[in-house]
């Protein structure tokens, strides 16, 4: 890279504002500056609402109205971007700036073949004829590593896997030889194994073609793996910027330190997660002690029989045919899975998307009926052939926490009525006043103020909602809680808080947790024992430490090796 070339992207003192309906102005980005040289990957990280995507959109001229650039400048390849038009003189989105978006399921038009999506931009911007565009599309597909590119050209997006689709999106972004690619969370929707391939592809493109990449992400592991430089943002402001290794190893700003500290480690188990800011408030400890008193945990099983055992579980989904009477298609989501969970432990179930882990969570919590096999809770068959009906204490015993805190609370009900529902339904409180007390205690136990009962769910942030969702599950006084990806839609600092909360609740009430997750680092931090799943089957089950230190199955080894982590960098800094 010669020094005389202008940087592919230079942002100086950028300020993006959104005028609000009431006349106030929301500043999404304030005095942000960054420079990307050719061949450099510059990561922009931060939690949701930090303004990182806004910067990406400003560069691409895709700011949503009424948002606009209020101050500062953006130069693309040395040419200034006109804030009023949202594009630089002679710079065309699609030709000089390529875009890769988060979700490959929606960023390709389902009605066009791969060929027409790829050739469209080339024919518009490069004025290529059909044959030349096709030849170029072929070479691009080869460059992004799609097998049998000849055949894939004819394919529609739904005929490709998620990873292949994201490759096609990247190929489209590269189609006109851009100098700059803006990649907004390019691997967030993908599994770790696919993510590793896409990250390697981006790195190769930067190295071999000298493309500058602005990588917007929330994942510190991704940053550590491929970025040359990193800029950490918080509430619209740049808090720290510099070479990746330096920033991640020795962050200076307090927020950067806290953010990096909150990333779950996969290399060693910690007692608690370091947490940014306050970790819940109020009388959490008292409230938890009170819950424990009510839960009557006297019946802990002493003789070592498991609290829950899943035996030979099979779940099949039948998709119906197009015409009535035509034979449907059977899909086996869970295929002969057996494991058992002991009282008081945290049992982890990990695997990539589509491996059947969530289906198992649904069977255990009674939402889905198994095709074969059974689930036994404390000697009682609760799912499968000959299962007893789950009513009363049996139904109360197993509760669930869901992935999406935005849809798991009914937006038309006050928090108080949502939390009181299980209490009143199971008559766990003698009077209305007592129920109200219980609700207050539940809210305090998850680190919120009891006044929350009077408010509606929209008044709370994602992390607070997840806390409330946990207190609803606790309201039925369960013995076992199924946690289905409880933190995967939360920011890393909030994730640390929620995971700490689950640990504390487990310690205080002797709960058993079945934790479903795709995040191996989270699983290592939380679980006592772990089972790894792959396409409906259990491939390995072991004590958590054993599994992470000495994995036996090749798939487990592969998964562990693919996770992008901070640990390499961290390890070096500790050795130094």
């Amino acid at each position, binding site marked *: 890279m010669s020094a005389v070339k202008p940087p592919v992207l230079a942002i100086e003192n950028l300020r993006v504002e959104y005028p609000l309906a009431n006349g106030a102005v929301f500043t999404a980005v304030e005095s942000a500056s960054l420079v990307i040289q050719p061949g450099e990957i510059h990561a922009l990280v931060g939690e949701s609402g930090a303004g990182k995507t806004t910067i990406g959109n400003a560069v691409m001229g895709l700011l949503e109205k009424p948002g606009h650039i209020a101050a500062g400048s953006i130069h693309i390849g040395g040419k200034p971007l006109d804030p009023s038009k949202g594009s630089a003189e002679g710079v065309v989105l699609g030709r000089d700036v390529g875009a890769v978006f988060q979700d490959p399921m929606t960023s390709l038009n389902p009605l066009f073949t791969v060929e027409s999506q790829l050739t469209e931009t080339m024919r518009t911007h490069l004025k290529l004829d059909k044959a030349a565009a096709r030849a170029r599309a072929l070479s691009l597909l080869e460059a992004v590593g799609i097998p049998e590119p000849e055949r894939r050209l004819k394919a529609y997006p739904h005929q490709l896997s998620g990873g292949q689709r994201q490759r096609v999106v990247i190929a489209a972004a590269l189609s006109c030889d851009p100098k700059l690619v803006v990649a907004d969370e390019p691997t967030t929707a993908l599994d770790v194994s696919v993510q590793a391939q896409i990250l390697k592809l981006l790195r190769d493109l930067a190295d071999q073609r000298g493309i500058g990449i602005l990588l917007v992400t929330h994942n510190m592991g991704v940053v550590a793996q491929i970025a040359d430089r990193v800029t950490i943002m918080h509430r619209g402001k740049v808090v720290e910027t510099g070479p990746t290794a330096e920033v991640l190893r020795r962050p200076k700003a307090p927020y950067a330190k806290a953010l990096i500290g909150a990333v779950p480690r996969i290399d060693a188990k910690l007692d608690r997660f370091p947490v940014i800011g306050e970790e819940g408030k109020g009388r959490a400890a008292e409230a938890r002690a009170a819950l424990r008193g009510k839960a009557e945990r006297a019946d802990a099983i002493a003789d070592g029989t498991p609290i829950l055992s899943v035996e030979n579980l099979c779940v099949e989904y039948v998709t119906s045919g197009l015409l009535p009477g035509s034979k449907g298609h059977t899909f086996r989501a869970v295929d002969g899975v057996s494991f058992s969970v002991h009282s008081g432990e945290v049992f982890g179930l990990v695997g990539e998307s589509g491996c059947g882990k969530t289906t198992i969570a649904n069977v255990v919590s009674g939402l889905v009926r198994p095709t074969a096999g059974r689930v036994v809770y404390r000697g009682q068959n609760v799912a499968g052939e000959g299962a007893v009906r789950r009513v009363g204490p049996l139904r*109360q015993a197993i*509760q669930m926490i869901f992935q999406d805190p935005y849809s798991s609370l009914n*937006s038309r009900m006050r928090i108080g009525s949502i939390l009181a*529902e299980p209490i009143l339904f199971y008559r766990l409180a003698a009077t209305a006043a007592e129920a109200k007390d219980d609700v207050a205690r539940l809210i305090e136990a998850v680190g919120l103020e009891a006044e929350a009962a009077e408010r509606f769910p929209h008044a709370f942030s994602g992390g607070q909602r997840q806390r409330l969702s946990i207190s609803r599950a606790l309201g039925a006084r369960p013995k076992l809680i199924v946690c289905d990806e409880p933190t995967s839609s939360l920011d890393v600092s909030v994730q640390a808080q929620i995971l700490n909360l689950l640990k504390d609740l487990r310690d205080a009430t002797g709960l058993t947790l079945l934790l479903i997750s795709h995040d191996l680092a989270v699983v290592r931090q939380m679980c006592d024992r772990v089972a790894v799943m792959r396409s409906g089957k259990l491939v390995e089950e072991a004590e958590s430490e054993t599994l992470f230190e000495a994995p036996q199955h090749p798939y487990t080894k592969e998964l562990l090796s693919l996770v992008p982590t901070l640990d390499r960098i961290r390890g070096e800094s500790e050795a130094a």
Partner: protein
Amino acid sequence: MKTLASPGLITRIGAPISVLAAAALALIIVACALLASWIAPYDPTNLASFDLMNAELPPAFTADGDAHFLLGTDNQGRDLLSTMLYGARVSIMIGGGAVLVAATLGVMLGLLAGYFGGKVDALIMRIGDVILSFPTILLALLVSGVARAVFPGAATAEWAPIILICAIATNEWVQYARTVRAATMVETAKDYVRAAKVIGLPSRRIMLRHILPNVMSPVLVISTINLAAAVLTEATLSFLGVGMPPTYPSLGTLIRIGNEFVFSGIWWIALFPALALVILVLAVNIVGDWLRDRFNPKLRVKR
């Protein structure tokens, strides 16, 4: 705190002036109709209050008009304005009743179909499909015809409104059921419903307490548009002679009566009720269309 009278209210509703005007007009007509017994100059249902001698008097503003009868009189000597006010009341009450019955039935069946799916869903929705394959008027004629055949009192002033409400609702519930079914399917897949299932709440409680409040906004929108449609259907049926009897006329009955006299130069008996009907239906439709657009996120323009 802002009071209701603050200037912000109207801008916060965000409706264009034409919609506000239509809403005001619709409200005025409905209010006048409902208050007919107090504001109408005469009582057309009271035989003693009118005289056949006054029959077919033209409106007061024409050359031969009588100052006592602002819009003239009908063929029985009833004051047309009073008869129209009472008629509008009948029309609106039948329309409103039909919407209420159709909405209740449709929402319940839609909830069941969407929540349980499978055979329950197939049964309810196929019945709905069959009903929709008949033209609205034909089906309503069928229902009121059958009712008159098996039940001799069906044509009387007491029973005719109930028969009409049933005849119109038979058709309209399907639209509610389809909309609510679709919305219920979306809501049922959401985590808050799954959470309620895991807690072990009975299906009835999940449907009524959790899902119903979340599927109601499209129902309100459909109801507005259907109210106008129901008033029109009622008028059509009455015009065809299977609706309200002439002794207790709705707007449709009045138009039918007037229709017989139009060619003898007595135009007002048909014209004024017809105008009232058009204005009412148009106003309600404008409000309904606006509501529909407003609750449809796809059509909402970013401001």
